[in-house]
């Protein structure tokens, strides 16, 4: 399925791990907790997977459809707070609250899209940035519902996760690791499936040029709306995992700084590729953690890095790899021809 998604659309996804490549990556990832790694290592793993899901969600709009959405973290926050509020205040089970959060984010994404897609290009990005700030401010000020500045404290782990983990002889942290891994796999499957379908190819057409896409009979507005819903639903999905994993929510996680971090990760990994949203967070989040001393000043490095990436390698690491591979293939072909001639 995953591999096919890439092959069907010629030229769009040269960076293919192939179905077996993805299976290998996920099997390896699933084996990690069995070697009894430190809690710190598992924590890095879970964080990477949460960021990767967010990057996949953003990639649907930015990488495939060519629209830069800057309210992304807002939906992450809405997803997380929905899970937090429903489990803490309404006594819902996480397993019910999580889908509810995803559904809410999809509906809100639809509403946002109905207004935001009336604007185009730069105005769209700035408009969504404004919406992102409103979401963060509302979360921060609505004390009665969200706990305001104090945040939401003491969100319990999902029912059964601890029992299940202990039952197979693992710690709760490993249980969370598997929860995040399964969520990530579902996200990748959903995005790969969407990308390989007619819907996905229509999005690429819209990225190439809206007027051209329209003249080819694509309903641009509806497709953008659907892409937005998929993107915000994934953000909410990631938010749900984050809420139960961290157990504490503050409004900062819904703010523009979070959106920009995800944007940086996505760019570093590779826009519009299937592997990029995983590679970017895996490399950069690990780098951030190893530069712990630099924490406050990490943007002295990351700011210029973002500028250099977008100027010289806008397709990210996956893109660089694709280019190198294309060159190798070209060399192979021309080399063969040369040999035939000789």
């Amino acid at each position, binding site marked *: 399925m995953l591999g096919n998604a890439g092959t069907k659309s010629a030229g769009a996804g040269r960076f293919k791990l192939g179905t077996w490549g993805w299976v290998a990556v996920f099997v390896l990832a699933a084996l990690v907790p069995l070697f009894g790694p430190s809690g710190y290592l598992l924590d890095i793993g879970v964080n990477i997977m949460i960021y990767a899901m967010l990057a996949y969600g953003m990639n649907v709009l930015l990488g495939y459809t060519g629209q830069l959405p800057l309210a992304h973290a807002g939906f992450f926050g809405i997803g997380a707070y929905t899970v937090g509020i429903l489990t803490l205040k309404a006594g819902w089970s996480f397993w019910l609250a999580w889908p509810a959060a995803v559904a809410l984010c999809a509906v809100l994404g639809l509403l946002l899209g109905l207004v935001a897609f009336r604007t185009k290009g730069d105005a769209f990005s700035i408009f969504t940035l404004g919406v992102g*700030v409103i979401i963060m401010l509302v979360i921060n000020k609505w004390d009665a519902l969200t706990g305001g500045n104090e945040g939401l404290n003491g969100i319990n782990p999902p029912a059964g996760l601890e029992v299940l983990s202990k039952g197979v002889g693992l710690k709760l942290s490993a249980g969370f690791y598997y929860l995040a891994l399964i969520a990530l796999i579902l996200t990748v499957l959903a995005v790969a499936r969407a990308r390989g379908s007619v819907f996905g190819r229509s999005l690429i057409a819209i990225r190439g040029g809206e007027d051209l896409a329209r003249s080819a009979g694509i309903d641009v507005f509806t497709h953008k709306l659907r892409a937005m819903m998929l993107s915000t639903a994934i953000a909410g999905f990631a938010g749900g995992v984050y809420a139960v994993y961290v157990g504490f929510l503050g409004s900062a996680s819904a703010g523009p700084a979070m959106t920009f971090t995800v944007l940086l990760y996505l760019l570093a990994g590779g826009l519009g590729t299937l592997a990029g949203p995983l590679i970017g967070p895996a490399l950069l989040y690990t780098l951030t953690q190893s530069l712990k001393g630099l924490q406050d000043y990490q943007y002295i490095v*990351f700011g210029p890095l973002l500028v250099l990436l977008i100027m010289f390698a806008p397709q990210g690491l996956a893109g660089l790899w694709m280019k190198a591979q294309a060159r190798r293939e070209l060399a192979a072909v021309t080399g063969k021809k040369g040999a035939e001639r000789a």
Partner: protein
Amino acid sequence: MSTFLQQLFNALALGGVYALVALGLTLVYGVMRVPNFAHGGLYMLGAYLSYAVLTGLGWGYVPALIISAIGVALLAAFMERVIFYPMRNAPHVHPMIAAIGVLFFLEAAVQLVWGPDFKQITEPVPGIVNVGGVIITWQRLLVIGASVVVMLGLNYFLKRTMTGATIEAMSQNREGARLVGVNTNRVGMMTFAISGALAAAAATLIAPIISVSPSMGEVMNLKVFAIIILGGMGSVPGAIVGAFLLALAEVFGGYYISLDFSDVIGFAMLVLVLALKPQGLFKRGT
């Protein structure tokens, strides 16, 4: 009534500062088609440069304002040369992302040099005046006066001088401007420099009223973007009208509805306007 006048006066001072910052942003957008997310960073840097000149060198308020305006203008021009000019043909999302990177860098750099704490700039002319029961600080009067002078000067420059006319020409029609011999290269750089100087001047004017902090640019950034979308991106009169509308909505909304949500009111207004008029209140092209 006097409360109303008091609030109106505060709104005018705030609107003047918003207008100066928004004007630079809208000029750059008009000429370069770059939504410069680093603009809030330039504004913040302007406040810190003034702070440094005032406390480090111990010079006066006016030299501080001038030095910080020149310093930020040079940096903005440099940014245009090194980052935005080479990216002029890239997809429109790319320069926007690069600008976000610059904003991050400026914030982190300022924090590294001056620390994360709030800094205070003392008022050059302390004290208040009482006009018929309305209490006005000299600083707010200064803000209003200076912003009006700068706006008039900018208007004169754009409408009455040859160099200013090239900016207008390029924002109306890039190719056309090049055809009639406008050096579009130089105009882009100059526009960035002007936008930097305006941002630094605005920051120095408002700094004695608010506190100076590395994150002060973020909020301002969002507000001026709201303003220029509201006024129509690239439109000069739109930016001025948008600035005062936002300031009025914030001050009166904050006073009569809720101070907690005064920042939200501005954005809510933006969402409302865009839902009804996606092109903004003023169409571009003056």
